[in-house]
């Protein structure tokens, strides 16, 4: 997919010395050298592949950025306006492109144009990534409400994806509903194969999606990514109070950071989640820092 949206020069340079499986993200900033996050290390992208010297790097231009968004939108930027307004676009294969530029506002955001930065994030399906914590998700057939906590780029979505896959792979016939607001978890209709028991609703806000899934799909588990808005928590509580299990993720680096998020206070107090899984990039993306119980005591990983 990346081949279809990147200029040939950049795509060729990217694949010269590295494999797409190693690349996590590509960042393009107008007038700046293109940078690549590869195996959690930051590099510049030169014509001969990844390099450490910014002077050897290819510099991004505004035309380059416009061209990438143009191709990513199937040559119809107007058609992705709703996504652009939220600051990102998701393209085939689950590739997410974060967009910065000039915001056109008229009470509400109308659109973003004159793109100045793009952050292209490549999704990875890493089989068995969730195995070390899988018995905390489901134990002797009993499902837990799980919250995965990690900083941006910490492997939350990859972990979530593998949990869905493993549930099916291990023969648990739970109906899983994925509220995939950005189309990242499943990578759309022709995206990842995450087993036989999942339904996904893409490009709808998490809160609406969860309530819709709850009503329409009678799921056993609801899976969603990057909780943040107040409405998300309301929808989540509705799901939990309906006897549906929830596996979700949130941006934070530690349990302490999570505690500081006021919107989580109620969920923590009511012990809505049975397990908290903290990930970091310490020893590579998806390093499991620890698993915590509902009372926030550590039960797995690091020093107990």
């Amino acid at each position: 997919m990346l081949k279809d949206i990147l200029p040939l020069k950049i795509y060729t340079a990217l694949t010269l010395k590295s494999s797409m499986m190693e690349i996590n993200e590509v960042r393009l900033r107008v007038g700046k050298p293109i940078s690549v996050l590869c195996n959690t290390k930051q590099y510049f992208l030169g014509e001969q592949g990844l390099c450490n010297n910014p002077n050897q790097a290819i510099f991004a231009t505004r035309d380059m950025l416009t061209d990438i968004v143009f191709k990513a939108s199937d040559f119809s930027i107007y058609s992705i306006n709703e996504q652009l307004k939220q600051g990102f676009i998701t393209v085939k294969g689950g590739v997410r492109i974060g967009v910065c530029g000039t915001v056109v506002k008229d009470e509400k955001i109308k659109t973003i144009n004159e793109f100045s930065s793009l952050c292209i994030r490549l999704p990875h399906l890493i089989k068995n990534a969730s195995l070390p914590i899988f018995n905390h998700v489901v134990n002797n057939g009993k499902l837990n409400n799980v919250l995965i906590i990690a900083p941006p780029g910490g492997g939350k979505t990859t972990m979530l994806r593998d949990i869905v896959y493993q549930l099916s792979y291990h023969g648990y016939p739970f109906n899983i509903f994925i509220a995939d607001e950005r189309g990242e978890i499943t990578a759309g209709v022709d995206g990842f194969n995450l087993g036989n028991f999942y339904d996904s609703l893409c490009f709808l806000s998490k809160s609406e999606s969860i309530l819709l899934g709850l009503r329409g799909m009678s799921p056993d588990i609801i899976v969603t990514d990057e909780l943040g808005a107040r409405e998300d928590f309301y929808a989540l509580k509705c799901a939990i109070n309906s006897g549906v299990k929830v596996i979700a993720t949130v941006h934070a680096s530690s349990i302490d950071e999570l505690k500081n998020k006021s919107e989580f206070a109620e969920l923590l107090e009511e012990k809505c989640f049975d397990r908290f899984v903290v990930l970091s990039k310490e020893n590579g993306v998806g390093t499991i820092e620890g698993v915590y119980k509902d009372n926030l005591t550590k039960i797995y990983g690091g020093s107990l």
Partner: protein
Amino acid sequence: MKIVMVVAVVVLCGVLGRGLANSYVDRKKFFIELRVFVLQLKSDINFSMKKLVLIIDEVRSNTSSKIFEKLLSNYKQKYLIENVDANQDLFFGVDILSESEMAIMSDFFMNLGKTDVFNQNEMINNFLKRVEEFNVGAKTDSDKYCPLYTKLGILVGLFVALIVV
């Protein structure tokens, strides 16, 4: 026999005259279809937000102008599939347009899909004004030159018949 020959020569020259005016008819058809395309674009971009390729395919399958169909086909192939940035490819096989018409159309097609819905709308509205002008010009030319060329053909036919017979 002579009468048959006279009639044949006159009809033949009349048809030839009409044939010479074909480019005016093609231009008229072309600009009518272009206008339909632009209106369709405007509606699809504003309401259904359909992708450009789908709009083009739809218009291509319904257009009655082979030359306009050729233009859309060039645009789709060169810009949306091969993604080549070569201006002249757009008008390959489209030889009824003037330099200035080509320049305006090229500018429009090169920017199609490249901006947000608001800028696209503005661009389409501006282009639509030019298309209306092209349409009026092409219709006037067609209405003026088609009968003229046909009449001239018949006159030439009569003249030839007079000399030969």
